[in-house]
């Protein structure tokens, strides 16, 4: 029992350290990929190929003044970024990151907590992440922040529906909420991947995932052309950095969810071992987010609502109904 507790603590610390480092590295990747797609070089001068830009940004963020505007609600203003970062990392607790492996004769399961309601926990935690931007926007006494908070509420709450309904169909097929069961269900090669049975659910989940992680084309929360920086307008330094890390951790979580639920998870894929396979899949989803950001324009808030309630939600309901009928027959 002691071993279990210590192991869990070590795993939690490792996940926190690695994913936050990856989230930081994600900002570098994003700048590089966007630059290449616009035929620029991106960061080049700090370190080889700008690799140390990450360290330079970290130093800048940590040494910047922690500024709290005079009219703001100090307590809520200060804890709001922590909510975003914390919920993003807590959501990762129930996600199996890699296949089991042996280390010093001990079988390590790279999942912090194998919950039997894993996917519900992840989605619920990401939904709780809504409070970060919402409280931040409302606490800072800034009209752009308030607009950003309002957009957070409508966007996150609306797209929660689509996420839940789209993932309901795979859950019905697998018959479990544990992400490990999802992985084991798809262990017989590419043909058993759930994306072939549920292509509509996959697309809906991906679209909703972009809205949940506040990525282009749905990044209305901090749409700089309309509302300055949205909920993050008054933030600077490490508090702003925590929003950023939370957003990137959420991107990684969505990548893991999409890979595990629809693309066969960490089962070995031909000659590629399982650990590498899931890293490749998550990297692809991360790259896809950057690619989409470089390619597509933002949409308007009314189009966002139209898309959610008039297109995606009905499609998701139809998909769930058809899946249910197909399972009964």
């Amino acid at each position, binding site marked *: 029992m002691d071993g279990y507790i210590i192991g869990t603590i070590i795993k939690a610390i490792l996940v926190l350290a690695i994913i936050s480092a990856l989230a930081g590295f994600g900002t570098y990747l994003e700048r590089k*990929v966007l630059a*290449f*797609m*616009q*035929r*620029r*070089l991106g960061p*080049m001068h700090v370190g080889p190929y700008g690799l140390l830009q990450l360290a330079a940004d970290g130093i800048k963020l940590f040494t910047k003044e922690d500024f709290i505007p005079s009219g703001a609600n100090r307590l809520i203003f200060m804890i709001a970024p922590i909510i975003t970062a914390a919920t993003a990392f807590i959501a990762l607790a129930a996600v199996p990151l890699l296949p089991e492996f042996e280390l010093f004769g001990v079988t390590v399961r790279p999942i912090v907590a194998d919950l039997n309601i894993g996917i519900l926990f992840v989605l619920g935690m990401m939904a709780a992440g809504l409070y970060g931007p919402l409280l931040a926007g409302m606490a800072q006494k800034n009209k752009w922040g308030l607009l950003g908070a309002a957009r957070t509420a409508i966007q996150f709450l609306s797209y929660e529906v689509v996420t839940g309904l789209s993932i309901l169909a795979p859950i019905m097929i697998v018959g479990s909420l544990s992400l490990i069961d999802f992985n084991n269900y798809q262990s017989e090669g590419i043909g058993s991947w759930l994306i072939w049975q549920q292509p509509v659910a996959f697309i809906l989940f991906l679209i909703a995932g972009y809205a949940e992680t506040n990525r282009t084309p749905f990044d209305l929360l901090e749409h700089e052309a309309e509302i300055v920086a949205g909920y993050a307008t008054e933030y600077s330094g490490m508090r702003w950095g925590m929003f950023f890390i939370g957003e990137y951790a959420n991107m990684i979580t969505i990548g893991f969810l999409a890979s595990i639920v629809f693309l066969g998870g960490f089962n070995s894929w031909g000659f590629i071992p399982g650990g590498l396979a899931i890293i490749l899949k998550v990297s692809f989803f991360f790259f896809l987010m950057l*690619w*989409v950001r*470089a*390619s*597509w324009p933002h949409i308007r808030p009314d189009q966002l609502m139209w898309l959610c309630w008039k*297109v995606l939600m009905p499609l998701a309901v139809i998909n769930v109904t058809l899946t249910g009928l197909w399972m009964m027959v």
Partner: protein
Amino acid sequence: MSLEEFKNRNVGEQNYRLVDVGQTPQTGMEKFEQVVKRAVKLELFTGLKVTFREMFKALFGGQMHTTKYPFEKLPIAPRYRAIHEMKRLLESGHYRCIGCGLCEKICIANCIRMDTRYDENQRKEVSEYTINFGRCIFCGYCAEVCPELAIVHGGRYETASEQRASYSTFEDMLTPLDQLAQQSEFPGFGAVSDDADKKIKKTPLAY
């Protein structure tokens, strides 16, 4: 990048054409049809294709557009009017300036000061010559008025200085003797045009 490429760097293939976007949908049904049509034709993926193609061209086709400015510079047009240069005669290496003082006279910013004296051959030599680049407005009158094409505008456009008054002396701007071979005939501001010979007309006296 050569000057010719530089001038043509943003010139496309020139086969622009209007994209036929069709009628703007009016009724709800028409809007719905448009959405379905666009979704089925996967028009969004065209955008993804374009950005990926550009990335591929930039990374592997050598079409990166970035100029790392302080380390590499784009060529500048010969008629650009930046920091002055004093030219030398190609044959003798003596400076071209004859000390006529026209540049000092014509300078509307009053930034040129020169002093001359006769040397042992009774030829005028420049004893003092300064340009105050804090005052110079780079109008190009000095280069235009110079009868010998001795003072011309070069391409050094980084003119920031720590003080408002920043002087350059004659020797600063003069082509160094060891670089005389690289000094080319100046094609820019104040120089005669390529077709100057054709533009010469007979004076009426010849009739």
